[in-house]
C-alpha cells in the first residue's frame, strides 16, 4: 500500500504530531504510515481522508504486490 500522506501533510504545513492529534493517533503512528511500516485500518484511513478533505482512495493506493 502506498500513500500520499507526506505530500498532503506538507501542503497543509502540518507536522506529524499535528496530523496525529487531528486524527487521534500518535506522531509515531503517522510516521509508520508514511514510511509504509503500517497500513491504517478503515476508521483511521477515513479520519485521515476527512482531515485532508479527500477521498480515502485519493490518499491510499494499492500496489501490485498487495
Amino acid at each position, binding site marked *: 500500500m502506498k500513500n500520499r500522506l507526506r505530500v498532503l501533510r506538507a501542503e497543509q504545513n502540518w507536522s506529524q504530531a499535528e496530523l496525529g492529534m487531528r486524527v*487521534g*493517533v*500518535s506522531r*509515531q*503512528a503517522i510516521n*509508520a504510515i508514511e514510511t509504509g*511500516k*503500517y497500513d491504517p*485500518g478503515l476508521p*483511521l484511513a477515513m479520519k485521515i481522508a476527512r482531515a485532508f478533505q479527500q477521498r480515502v482512495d485519493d490518499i491510499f493506493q494499492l500496489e501490485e504486490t498487495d
Partner: protein
Amino acid sequence: MPLTDEEKKLDPSVRRLFRELGVVAFWGVTYASAIQILKHHPQTVWLRGAAVALAIAGFATWLVFTARAIRSENEFTRRIHLVALSIAFAVTALFLFVSDMLQRAGFLDYVSLMTIFMVMLASWWISIVIAMRYYR
C-alpha cells in the same frame, strides 16, 4: 471507583498511570497476603482456598484492567500490543518447549511455574519496546 477533584485535573495518561499503579499495588498486596496465609496456615483447607481465591482476584483485576486499557487505545497502539503479545506467546512457547526437552534429557531438574510466568511477562514487556522501536 469515583474520581477525586484532584484526579480530574490530571492529564488522562497520568490518571491512567496512577490507576495502573493502583491496580498493580492491589495485585501485589493480594499476592503477598496469599503467600503469607499459605505459609502460616498450611493445614487449614478453607484458608488455603481463600488465599488462592484472593491471589486470583488480584491477578484477574490487573488482567481486566490491562485488557481494557489496551482496548481503549487507538488502532496503532493496539497493533503494537498485538505484535508484542504475538512475540511474547512465541517466546514463552519456545521457553516451555526448550525447558521440557532439557528436563527430559536430564540437563535441567525443575522449572517453576512462576519462572515461566516471569519469562512470559518479561518477554511481553521487551516485545512492546521492540515493536515500538520498529514502528518509530
